[in-house]
């Protein structure tokens, strides 16, 4: 126990590690906030140039960027209505309406405090419940991952779009984009049209930068001449009453975030959307309706996406399965440093496990400091005229797309995705489900096929498995209810039940 505490304190006691964590967190906030720059991209670039560093130093910087980046996306979501990262998609739904009411400072302050709370809860969960949560995740089989992916995409579709059909269309389109390239099981080309460039697939960061960066830049061209909405950022430190009032919903969202984060493949983005949905359902009488600036709708996704960071480390450190894209990159970093993430990591290198726990906690403390300060500088960047910002977004998008694999073709793809995103936006489609589809599509495809192979290709066996396994049954019911909620059937049943009762 004393050993664990000693390892835990390493990052707090070493000034250089303190410095690296602080720099990482601050840089992460800006990386997360600028649309087109992603934490995944920053983490992958950081790995290439921290290669020669010690493992603690490299991890301190990357963990800082990770924690800061997940939070940073919320700032542009609140101030500009552009989520800096997919995990901030749900934040924009209520954060931006709050900013429009002149409550941007309050929204940022509240989201910072709740993010830190969520982050620390995630870290505590990582430290205490890691074995238990990973046991639960172990019980999930391929069907369950398929169901989770479907629920995730449909949730984004129902939450962010103007109609369910448009959300479902975009989600499916994203899945299709994710399928491009050589099939990992049979090496057969899918939608490659004989092009070598398409055989490697479309990196989802390229799609994300295209749809969110270039697409948004083109869409914003119309508004160049208009005066920028100056968001008044006044009071940043939230009132104690507000924190106390929303503590319960923050705790609840942190719990959801930790569990969703711990499921392999599902990270902060799904956690944030599920927590938003949960807050919407569980808040009976919000002061302001959801979507028009409900503080509950701001707090839930923010607490959840930061809690998911701690959660995402659980399967990564205990099973060697990444919880999300960034932890997948961190696994790569550990391999580079000669470490083997998996069940033996905790046994052979307990110091590393406790160091990560301590460092994540430290990054969250820095998040509190940087989150509640420096907003004036941040808003100055945000107040930059669109005429200057738009060309810069295009340049940064091109740079980000190129940096993934040093492939110039990715720049053209990014521009093409941007043009498609522009037309979709013009006709009321949301691009969020597309991105989630691209990220989750390959995972869902692999799990669908594993489940089908498990059922020996027999459709009735395959379907039966969904209702005979308890975990699959719960998830299947969740999916069916989600689909029913989009049709008049559920309302009709509710009406009948209430009619019979009265």
């Amino acid at each position, binding site marked *: 126990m004393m050993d664990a505490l000693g390892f835990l304190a390493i990052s707090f006691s070493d000034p250089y590690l303190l410095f690296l964590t602080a720099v990482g967190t601050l840089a992460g906030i800006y990386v997360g906030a600028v649309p087109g720059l992603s934490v995944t991209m920053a983490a992958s670039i950081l790995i290439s140039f921290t290669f020669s560093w010690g493992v603690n130093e490299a991890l301190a910087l990357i963990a800082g960027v990770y924690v800061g980046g997940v939070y940073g996306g919320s700032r542009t979501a609140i101030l500009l209505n552009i989520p800096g990262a997919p995990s901030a998609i749900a934040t924009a739904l209520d954060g931006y309406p709050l900013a429009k009411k002149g409550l941007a400072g309050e929204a940022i302050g509240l989201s910072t405090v709740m993010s830190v709370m969520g982050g620390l809860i995630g870290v505590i969960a990582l430290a205490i419940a890691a074995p238990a949560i990973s046991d639960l995740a172990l019980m999930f089989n391929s069907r369950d991952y398929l169901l989770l992916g479907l629920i995730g995409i449909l949730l984004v579709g129902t939450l962010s779009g103007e109609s369910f059909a448009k959300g479902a*269309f975009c989600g499916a389109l994203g899945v299709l984009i994710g399928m491009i390239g050589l099939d990992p099981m049979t090496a057969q080309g899918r939608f490659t049209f004989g092009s070598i460039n398409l055989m490697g697939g479309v990196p989802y960061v390229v799609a994300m930068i295209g749809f969110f960066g270039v697409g948004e830049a083109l869409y914003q061209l119309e508004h160049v001449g208009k005066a920028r909405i100056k968001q008044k950022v006044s009071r940043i430190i939230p009132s104690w009453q507000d924190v106390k009032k929303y503590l319960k919903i923050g705790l609840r969202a942190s719990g959801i975030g930790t569990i969703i984060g711990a499921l392999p493949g599902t990270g902060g983005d799904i956690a944030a959307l599920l927590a938003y949905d949960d807050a919407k359902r569980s808040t009976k009488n919000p002061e302001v309706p959801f979507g028009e600036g409900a503080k509950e709708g701001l707090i839930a996704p923010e607490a959840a996406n930061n809690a998911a960071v701690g959660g995402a480390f659980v399967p990564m450190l205990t099973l060697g399965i990444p919880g999300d894209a960034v932890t997948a990159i961190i696994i790569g970093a550990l391999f580079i440093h000669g470490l083997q993430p998996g069940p033996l990591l905790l046994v052979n290198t307990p110091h590393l496990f406790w160091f990560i726990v301590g460092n994540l906690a430290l990054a969250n403390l820095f998040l509190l400091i940087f989150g509640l300060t420096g907003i004036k500088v941040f808003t100055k960047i945000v107040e930059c005229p669109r005429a200057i910002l738009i060309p810069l977004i*295009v*340049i940064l998008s091109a740079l980000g797309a190129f940096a993934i694999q040093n492939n110039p073709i990715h720049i053209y793809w990014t521009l093409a995705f941007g043009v498609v995103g522009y037309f979709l936006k013009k006709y009321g489609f949301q691009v969020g489900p597309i991105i989630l589809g691209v990220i989750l599509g390959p995972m869902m495809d692999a799990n669908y096929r594993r489940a089908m192979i498990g059922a020996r290709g027999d459709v009735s066996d395959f379907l039966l498995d969904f209702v005979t396994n308890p975990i699959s049954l719960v998830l299947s019911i969740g999916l069916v209810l989600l689909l029913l909620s989009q049709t008049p059937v559920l309302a009709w049943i509710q009406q009948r039940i209430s009619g019979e009762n009265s």
Partner: protein
Amino acid sequence: MKVEQGPRPGEIVFSVCLLAFSGWALWQSYAISGLESLFGPGVFPMLASAVMVLSGLSILGRTLKERRGQSDNPSSVFAYLFPIRLIVFAPMMVAFAAAMPWIGFFPSAALFILASIAFLWRRNLIWTLAITALSVVAIYVIFRLVFQVVLPSGVLWS
């Protein structure tokens, strides 16, 4: 993320295009491995494109219902989709991407930033030049020096 509200000229044509694309995607997905096995590489793409076809039909149906009796003239559709700024800016963007392998990332980025700020902002040249120079230097320091991203230097100079 904002979505366009109010009447959207050309919405019916757009919905038809989406449906046609979905149908083509379904056909392409079928061409991958057919229906020989239920765990072949083409099955999941077929499921995804089938969802696109179904939701595309639903979107078209709804659009037709909402816009019954309304007709768009081609000029309003064009004005809605292609405002003048887009017509000028989009080709500049493509020119930037096309010129990059030839003249290098930084020269093409500088020209693109200069041209687009001059077109979109319309302030005096000194300011435009100063902002361009500042942006390019900042990008160089952050990405080339700190992150050490290797960017195309241009085949014309090598």
